[in-house]
């Protein structure tokens, strides 16, 4: 590749390549650097007058995978392109800079072929993603600290109240019970807020991956029903299920399904009129299972319906009825339903009935 166009490029082309933010390297078929742009020197911390041509790309970059395992010639993306003629897209790597520090990068390698389709070398494009990786780590740290520090006291006090309401430490009078119900309702709302905030910090970064498996939706509903008993009592509403069989197997993530049903039923409880009987319906419809939840309550105003799944949206009548809330519940619910290959929709008449439907494929 001595006289290759990739080695001897015109000033105009050089200027064009140097203006690219990602590092571009042209290699011969032994993995030696023939040409490169300015971004490579910047990313690796070399001065612009340090000559990198002629160096072995693997020795210069010292790549490791995401877990710190060194990449050898045998599993290097660039040699997949050179030896096998394959293109490798966006592989994540760590490289060592001149000063010994690490950078995170994604690399794309493409074989370079001559007019007879023989591989002559490869082009590597390196994108520095160190800042994004650091932000991801901060987010994970934040999630851990927030999860632990916010949920621990909440969970403890909720369990203590459940214990008192259960009557085991002694009987309580009606007035005391009402206060405890109110405390429980407030804590449950706060827990919901924490969950929403933690979920929302993960969704845009696709950190949520569903573990799709065979689950019985009726069983999930029973757990959610138990979880929400006190919450429903505190709002003076009851929940009733209508089903046409015992088991409703779907393919979905168990935790996601629980969050989905929990969010929908919690909303129904919060926005129902007092003494309402919320109706849950589970039915098989061909190759689908349809879950629905109907309440009599404030409903969704016609002009607000199109925004109902939008992030941070809360309709005015919902804010008036329940001041606290993030407007994230239905957004998260829809994201989770979609991740689990389901569908969600609703029918609502303001100040009358609202029904949310969720459809999953049967297993």
């Amino acid at each position: 590749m001595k006289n290759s166009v990739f080695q001897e490029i015109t000033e105009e082309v050089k200027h064009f390549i140097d203006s690219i933010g990602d590092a571009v390297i042209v290699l011969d078929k032994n993995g030696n650097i023939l040409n490169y742009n300015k971004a490579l020197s910047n990313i690796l911390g070399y001065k612009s007058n340090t000559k990198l041509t002629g160096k072995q790309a693997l020795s210069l970059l010292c790549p490791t995978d995401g877990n710190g395992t060194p990449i050898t010639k045998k599993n290097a993306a660039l040699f997949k392109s050179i030896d096998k003629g394959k293109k490798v897209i966006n592989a994540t790597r760590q490289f060592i800079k001149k000063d010994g520090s690490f950078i995170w990068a994604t690399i794309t390698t493409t074989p370079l072929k001559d007019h007879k389709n023989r591989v002559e070398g490869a082009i590597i494009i390196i994108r520095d993603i160190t800042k994004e990786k650091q932000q991801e780590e901060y987010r994970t740290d934040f999630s851990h600290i927030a999860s632990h520090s916010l949920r621990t006291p909440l969970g403890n006090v909720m369990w203590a109240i459940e214990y008192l309401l259960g009557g085991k430490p002694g009987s309580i009078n009606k007035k005391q019970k009402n206060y405890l119900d109110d405390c429980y309702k407030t804590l449950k709302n706060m827990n919901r807020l924490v969950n929403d905030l933690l979920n929302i910090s993960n969704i845009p970064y696709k950190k949520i991956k569903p573990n799709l498996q065979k689950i019985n939706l009726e069983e999930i509903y029973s757990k959610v029903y138990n979880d929400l008993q006190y919450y429903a009592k505190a709002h003076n509403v009851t929940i009733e299920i209508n089903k046409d069989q015992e088991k409703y197997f779907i393919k979905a993530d168990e935790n996601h399904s629980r969050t989905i049903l929990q969010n929908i039923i919690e909303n129904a409880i919060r926005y129902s009129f007092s003494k309402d009987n919320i109706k849950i319906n589970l039915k098989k419809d061909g190759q689908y299972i349809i879950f629905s939840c109907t309440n009599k309550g404030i409903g969704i105003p016609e002009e607000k319906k199109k925004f109902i799944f939008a992030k941070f949206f809360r309709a005015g009548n919902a804010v008036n009825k329940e001041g606290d809330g993030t407007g994230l519940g239905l957004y998260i619910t829809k994201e989770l339903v979609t991740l689990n290959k389901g569908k969600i929709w609703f029918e609502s008449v303001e100040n009358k009935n609202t029904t949310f439907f969720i459809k999953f494929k049967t297993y």
Partner: protein
Amino acid sequence: MKIKKKILIVEDDSFTIKLYTRLLSDEGFEVISTPAANEACGLAKREKPNLIIMDLMLTDGNGFEVIKQIRKETSLKKIPIITLSNLGQETDIDEALKKGSNKYFVKSNTRFEEVVKAVKELI
């Protein structure tokens, strides 16, 4: 007299320990506890609990490593472990289960009855 089943709680929050001890004692279990990750294995070897309830973020270490250690110890490896943590990310849940926890509950999203049910199933 029926011998009570013994539960070891590894948890560093004193109110949480007090609460679990009260709730589980009411269910008829004998409860012992330690707040320290580095004491958990030794205590389990001495006390031979029927089940371990494990928190993950402990002051002196992380519960994932304790689970791993327990699963490596011949005399402890069959003791069921329930992870009861407030870390709710799937990566945490997967890691705890992979290291050998039998069940995982996100504490603030779970009612205590559900934990008791799981304890009874596993013992």
